[in-house]
């Protein structure tokens, strides 16, 4: 096979490595699964803004999941390499963060933030680069390149309104900010409240980072509701509670998509707060029969960690869902991975019982929420289970 001529042997020695390097291929959406290069996955999360507490937990969950997968050999025999950028709860920064991940870090897939303003900002860039993303915020139903592990707006609203109706409450005031997710939740709430015979007597809006909600709470209380539903997320829940407590009110205030740490802190400020939390967040309060093996295994894995279990679980599910899609596609090609996400069917998760992206990019298929009443001692007793 080989010539005995030294010149030919030398040529072969030079050519063979060159041929090997060329065969490995390149490009952002690499198609070769035989490459030993790591699979580059990006993550755009809020590390400095009002969502930092929950988003840092999501990022930690993604890292935990990546470490878990890498320990088992990675995806398609390739290790996962993570790159994180901060969007600071500013959609403009989400665009530049995504741009950096796509153009400089050459990611093949992305996991996204819990902030609903980030996803629409990122979509055009992801579409141009043909890179799929699994967000932990709501995404538009027509989104082609993003899917979400966030519970659907209707599920949280259903849990809160269900409790109000079951306790004979007939009217509710709404506190919200100006985010796209709150717009969606408001529309869902108006519809569901009607069906449950509950009247929305007032809606007051505030800035996402507001530190004073006395005026808004005052106005809501003047309408004499039987309860308040707070659609906005983040530290403003504490601010609203303070305003209610300072007024001497004991009106129930309900909110969803909170962190466990947040809920426990909020329980010290106002005793009539009710928070819709997911399984990992209330694991300690769950009856034994509702602790699935997946949930128990995850709870053991994160024991002793300080981050929010809900965020950790979402991040974990994001990276594992991506891994399953890449394995199914047998490729990191963006279009193939996105198609595979729709074809992997009903997938059990940790943050939610099941995901199904076949017909809806917001793929949490079953209501995951338990309603708890945080106490001053830090406990989170469950007052209502997941509504249908």
């Amino acid at each position: 096979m080989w010539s005995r001529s030294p010149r030919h042997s030398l040529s072969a020695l030079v050519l063979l490595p060159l041929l090997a390097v060329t065969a490995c291929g390149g490009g952002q959406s690499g198609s070769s699964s035989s490459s030993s290069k790591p699979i580059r996955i990006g993550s755009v999360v809020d590390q400095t803004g009002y969502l930092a507490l929950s988003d840092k937990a999501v990022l930690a969950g993604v890292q935990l999941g990546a470490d878990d997968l890498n320990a088992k050999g990675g995806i398609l025999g390739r290790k996962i390499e993570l790159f994180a950028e901060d969007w600071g709860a500013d959609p403009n920064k989400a665009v530049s963060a995504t741009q950096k991940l796509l153009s400089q870090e050459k990611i093949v897939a992305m996991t996204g933030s819990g902030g609903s303003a980030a996803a629409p900002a990122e979509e055009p860039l992801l579409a141009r680069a043909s890179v799929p993303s699994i967000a932990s915020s709501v995404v538009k139903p027509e989104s082609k390149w993003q899917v979400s592990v966030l519970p659907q707006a209707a599920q949280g609203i259903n849990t809160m309104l269900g409790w109000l109706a079951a306790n004979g409450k007939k009217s509710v005031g709404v506190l919200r900010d100006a985010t796209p997710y709150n717009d969606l939740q408001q529309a869902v709430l108006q519809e569901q409240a009607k069906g449950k015979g509950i009247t929305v007597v007032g809606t007051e809006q505030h800035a996402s980072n507001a530190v004073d909600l006395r005026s808004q709470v005052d106005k809501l209380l003047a309408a004499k509701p039987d309860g308040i539903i707070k659609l906005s997320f983040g530290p403003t829940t504490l601010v609203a509670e303070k305003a209610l407590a300072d007024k001497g009110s004991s009106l129930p205030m309900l909110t969803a998509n909170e962190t466990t740490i947040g809920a426990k802190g909020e329980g010290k400020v106002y005793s009539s707060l009710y928070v819709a939390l997911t399984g990992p967040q209330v694991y300690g309060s769950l009856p034994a029969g509702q602790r699935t093996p997946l949930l128990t295994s995850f709870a053991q894995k994160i024991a002793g960690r300080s981050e929010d279990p809900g965020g950790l679980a979402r991040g974990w599910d994001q990276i594992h869902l991506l891994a399953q899609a890449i394995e199914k596609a047998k490729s990191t090609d963006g279009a193939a991975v996105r198609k595979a996400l729709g074809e992997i069917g009903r997938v059990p998760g940790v943050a939610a019982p099941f995901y199904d992206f076949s017909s809806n990019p917001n793929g949490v298929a079953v209501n995951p929420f338990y309603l708890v009443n945080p106490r001053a001692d830090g406990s989170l007793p469950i007052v209502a289970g997941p509504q249908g």
Partner: protein
Amino acid sequence: MLSTLSIGFSLGCVYALVGLGFSLIYRTTGVISFAQGAFVMFGGMVTAWGVGTLHLNLVLAGVLGVTISSLAGLVLALGIILPLWWRKASAFALILGTTVFLLAAQNVILKVYGSEPRAVPPVVNGTLGIAGQRVPWQTLVVALAAVLLSFGLAVFLRRSRIGLAMRAVAESREVAQILGIRTDVIAVVVFVLAAALGAVAGLLIAPLQFASYSVGLTYNIRGFAAALIGGLGDIRGAFVGGIFLGVTEALVGFYLSTKFLDVFVFGLVLLLLVVRPQGLLGTGPRLPAWLKGRKSPDVVPQS
């Protein structure tokens, strides 16, 4: 109504204290300092840190907050304002410099303390019953402090040597220099004093809200508006302007809309300034000069 008014009055007092800082600096140095909001933030956050982390009592924590804020004012004056002055920088450069200071301060606090709001205990706990409604005692503390500080500042400007020097510089910097007054020293004193006022505003309002890195910009805008409403450079005007703004904001929010609150409130401010451009207490023509068929007068009112 009483609850709404008490909210508006407490906010108005804080806007007044921030506006006082704006007016004091502008009157003496001609600089519009957009760093005032940073001192409100420092006052609240350092006090919260003192109470929550160092376990100091509220008074000591408050003193720490005002001290740190005053030192920050010194840094602003020596590090940004004076160097720009000595280089005869334009007014816009000075405004930009103070804005950069605010943004940097915000980033530092965010980095050190994070984005979670911090609680500050009130000076006096509990509420007072007035006409069947509950008004927090802290609201009355804020009001009393704002009135005393404003009065004290007015007395200081009229009776003390430094106050006299500040008024001289405000009248004419060149003449003050000829008379041997160190105008750059006066500028430093003014910036430190304004920083202390901002810090007091921050630590007074924090018990009614929360202390947070994000309050700087909010109080900046509103404090500046308070100073404009009262008449930029007019000390009494800043106080009146702050109360006017706070009460208007609370009433508009309650009776009209919280969704478009900023649009309504600042629209009203704009309308007021169109009708009375010198502000409520500033001196100058009652109508814009173009309505009287003359050229516009110079902008800066002096009281």
